[in-house]
């Protein structure tokens, strides 16, 4: 239980730190900080995408750097996205993603109704403008994991009302 809180605190401090040293308070500087956060999440996602053997999973602590994966059952993109929604989300946030929708043409929308990194802030419309910066790291995380599993993508996030948020994954066809 304590592990989840540690990550949440660290994440909050990361965002606060990047925003505190804003030399350029305009939109240009903000974009820099967002892409730094996203880059961090990307590297973490790359490491998380490597899978261990299934036997290692039950014995380890909840926040270990590994995910359960018995076999190579990714026959298509949808399987990979399902893996993200179930196993990755459980490993990082101790809960599953609430809904996954797709238009079957490379766009997926993942919705989380009580996103752990936002749930402590507010419930409703308060702090709506501040919310996007707390989602940048997670967007990078999703993009990094997808890239290790061989899928190039673009991930954006949107918040309608805290703590519900939607991650939109657009697969880039090369």
């Amino acid at each position, binding site marked *: 239980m304590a592990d989840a809180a540690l990550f949440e605190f660290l994440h909050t401090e990361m965002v606060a730190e990047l925003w505190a040293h804003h030399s350029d308070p305009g939109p240009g500087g903000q974009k820099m900080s967002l892409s730094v956060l996203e880059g961090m999440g990307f590297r973490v996602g790359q490491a998380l995408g490597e899978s*261990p053997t299934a036997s290692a999973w039950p014995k380890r602590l909840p926040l270990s750097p590994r995910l359960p994966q018995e*076999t190579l059952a990714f026959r298509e993109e949808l399987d990979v996205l399902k893996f993200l929604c179930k196993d990755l989300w459980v490993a990082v946030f101790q809960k599953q993603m609430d809904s996954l929708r797709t238009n079957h043409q490379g766009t997926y929308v993942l919705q989380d109704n009580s996103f752990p990194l936002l749930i402590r802030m507010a419930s409703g419309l308060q702090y709506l403008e501040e919310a996007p910066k707390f989602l940048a790291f997670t967007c990078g995380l999703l993009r990094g994991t997808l890239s290790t599993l061989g899928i190039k993508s673009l991930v954006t996030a949107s918040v309608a009302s805290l703590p519900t948020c939607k991650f939109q994954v657009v697969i880039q066809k090369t």
Partner: protein
Amino acid sequence: MAVCVAVIAKENYPLYIRSIPTENELKFHYMVHTSLDVVDEKISAMGKALVDQRELYLGLLYPTEDYKVYGYVTNSKVKFVMVVDSSNTALRDNEIRSMFRKLHNSYTDVMCNPFYNPGDRIQSSPPIDTDVTLGHHQDFIKKHSRAHIPHLLLGVPCIPRRGPRGAPCSQQPRRLRGDPSQALPMAPSLSHDAVSRFILGPRAFDSMVTSMMVQVC
């Protein structure tokens, strides 16, 4: 006993390749290179078949008169290739599988190392003495920094011995004459310490591969 171990990236270039130095290394490099075709064939063949589960372990890729080559693929399309001496008939499938599993775990550790950039060569070298103090790990690293690889690769017989505090520990290499350092426990025990694994990342990888090469049957 594995005579050559290779880790190949998704784009089919080697991230790490290591063979017993007493033999002609080029021969093993060539074998690993040719085995990549077989690996690709196996992956694509499995993809077409309506098999729900594709295993990570690919099995025997091809045998030659002296050696057998085994393969393994991860979810991120990183391939592990292992060349084994044919004369060693005691090596069973299960043992090869467990060797690959250990290799996979070590590779995951390397990925988690923040100093490792994905796509780089996996480099293992004794750490240079830096100003960074690592607390009590400084001694740990100093003790293990001398590469004891030459002794291990020559297949020095391992005698079960009691550790420094009288606790029974896994096999230790016998001290060679003239070796100034102490006898150390075999590499696998290195990786049990989670923090040292974090710091030593690629080195634990290297020592794990070494231990695989001198596995006493």
